[in-house]
């Protein structure tokens, strides 16, 4: 009987390991496939990798910050709009002051302020966080669009001189920012009580509350970190292209969800949350989309590549969620 139990435990352990490693394996596999496809096509690999890194870095940073919110079992759909709004305020501030520190200050204050507003509204008035973020999404998008179109005039967008951000538009700077932010989040998530308690709150809020953990306090901290991620994301968006239009960062909001799940983290948060999920998932998703875009080429192909990408997404999530199935349908 003991042997059977041991065998079962060993099997479970192996399955856990497989599931933990799967997002990394998927990322490596996709990376290898991408490289093979690019080489086969005769494209310039180093340049392509740089482009893909640029495409993924903002998503990875914003989604890593958002992981703290998702760990609590919460949900924030306004992060794309926050990124747009922070970038908009950054451009307006730079154009008014000609000062990079002032621009950075405006971006951080705006991003963190918006994030805090969502969580404080939810905490003080006891309304679901998700609903406040839906409302924030509408308001921030509308206000940004108003500012951009009024000030952009015939150009259709607002911008800062490209020379202002040119010194930062290089891989070394962006990789450093990504690594530093990720290291900070990793530390907070895995080695402080912030991460531990957030996982506890996400896994069993009632129990956590009974042990004296203040849900509101940790929700506010989570939104604060997410706001920081948004601010860095907004700054890097401006570094890549020193202009903001109403479409800027438009796809980030939903892609955060996709990235986190693709990286093997349960959307319900809790103890199985993983801080690396956003980075692995974000880059995997971007690489997958690029592979499909290279391989499928025609107008109707836009739809077909989206279908393949979605099916692949569901397959990966299905496999990575194997170890947290219950007898009941998940909600």
């Amino acid at each position, binding site marked *: 009987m003991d042997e059977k139990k041991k065998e079962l435990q060993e099997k479970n352990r192996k399955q856990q390991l497989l599931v933990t490693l799967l997002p990394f394996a998927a990322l490596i596999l996709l*990376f*290898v496939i991408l*490289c093979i496809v*690019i080489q086969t*096509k*005769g*494209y*310039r*690999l*180093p*340049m*392509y*990798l*740089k*482009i893909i*890194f*640029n*495409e993924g870095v903002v998503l990875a940073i914003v989604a890593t910050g958002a992981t703290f919110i998702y760990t609590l079992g919460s949900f924030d759909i306004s992060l794309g709009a926050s990124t747009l709004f922070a970038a908009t305020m950054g451009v307006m501030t730079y154009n008014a002051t000609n000062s990079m520190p002032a621009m950075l200050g405006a971006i951080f204050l705006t991003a963190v302020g918006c994030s805090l507003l969502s969580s404080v509204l939810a905490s003080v008035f006891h309304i679901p966080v998700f609903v406040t973020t839906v409302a924030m999404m509408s308001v921030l998008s509308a206000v940004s669009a*108003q500012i951009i*179109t*009024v000030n952009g*005039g*015939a*150009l*259709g*967008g607002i*911008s800062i001189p*490209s020379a202002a951000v040119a010194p930062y538009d*290089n*891989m*070394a700077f962006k*990789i450093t920012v990504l690594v530093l932010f990720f290291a900070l989040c990793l530390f907070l998530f895995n080695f402080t009580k912030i991460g531990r308690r957030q996982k506890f709150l996400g896994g069993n809020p009632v129990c956590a509350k009974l042990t004296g953990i203040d849900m509101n306090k940790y929700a506010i901290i989570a939104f604060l970190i997410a706001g920081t991620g948004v601010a860095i994301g907004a700054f890097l*968006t401006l570094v*890549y*292209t*020193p*202009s*903001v*239009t109403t*479409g*800027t*960062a*438009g*796809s980030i909001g939903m892609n955060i969800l996709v990235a986190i799940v693709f990286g093997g983290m349960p959307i319900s948060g809790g103890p199985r949350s993983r801080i690396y999920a956003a980075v692995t998932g974000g880059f995997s998703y971007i690489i997958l989309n690029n592979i499909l*875009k290279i391989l499928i*080429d025609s*107008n109707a192909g*836009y739809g077909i590549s989206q279908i393949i990408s979605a099916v692949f997404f569901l397959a990966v999530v299905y496999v990575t969620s194997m170890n947290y199935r219950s007898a009941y349908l998940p909600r």
Partner: protein
Amino acid sequence: MKKFLKMMMSLSLAFALAACGSSTPATSGDSGSTAAQPAAVSGKTVKIGVLVADVSGEEALGFRSYFENYIANNYNAEFTYTEQLTDAAGEKAAIEKFAAQGYDAIISMSDSDRATQLQTSIDNGLYYAVASGMLADEQFEQYKSNEYFVGQVGPSMDAEYEAGYEMGKYFADKGVKKVALYGAFIPNPMHVYRAAGVLAGIGATYGGASEKDAVVGQIFGDQGIDIKKVETGDVELVGYFQGFGDTTFDELFACIGAQPEAFLSVGMATTFFTQNLNDAGIEFSDIDSFTEANGEAMKNGKLVYLAGKYSSSIGPVFAAIMNAVNGTPVRDADGNAISLSQDYLVATDAASFEKYATADKGDTPIFSKDVLDTMIGAVSYDDFATAVAANRG
């Protein structure tokens, strides 16, 4: 295993190279570049990347069909379209990908950030031309002398204003006394200029101003047309709305309720409102293109005025790109890039619509191979400009 490790190492090296590398122009790249050796000499296919913000509009599909089915069949050229581009980052990434794939040139029909597009093309040694809309004056001044900036051929903002003006004037001259106006997607700059033109065409002032720039500036500031600021002359503006959302049809019916004699639209009217306007028996006009749906609306519906683009109007941009790639760029006397505005063609009945539509059919476009051949090669700026102006259906 060793093989796998080897492969992983080479991939890591590639990534490291990506991390360290700067954006070296394609001329020095390994893809076989483009600027260094004229394509005509090498006999290689000219690869052109097309940036698009609209992947499904009939006008956009008409342009695409002309490039992919007519030009690609008649010239040694290959076109690759981007996905729908919605922001500047998407545009920049698309250009960089084309550069990584060894493309020769970029044709832009996306306008989130034209300055960044141009700079990215220059950084990567790609020739760049604008086929839809035009650069802002200060942007053109900044880049006009750069060898990679081939130029811009299409309706300028002045041409957009003129198209609106002519449309408004058409109805005013016709003796129409009450009109309604649809501002399409104002504050889209193109629609702002067209709407400002319509107001001038019907003899109206806006916020007391009648000068183009003053009116345009106010419309941008108001994010639309505030009907209370419109002072009309002989032609009364009885209704105005813009955008497309939950309130659109309520606003349309409120306009119809005001019983205008004509409904003037600066874009998309046939797509959105043909049936309602036909049912209400109200004549309408639009600035769009010579598509099947517009033909049907003109033949069997109440569409009475269409200022339209035709699919092969982007032919000159292709010719200009070919010249640049082949080492015979068309520049003006000061060595600057091409900047030529194209006007809209106007149809006011089924016959004139048919004339333009037939003139620009798939195998016999207005900018046919015969015409383009006169524009490709050692052509002077003036000859090029004359050819653009002469071929208008």
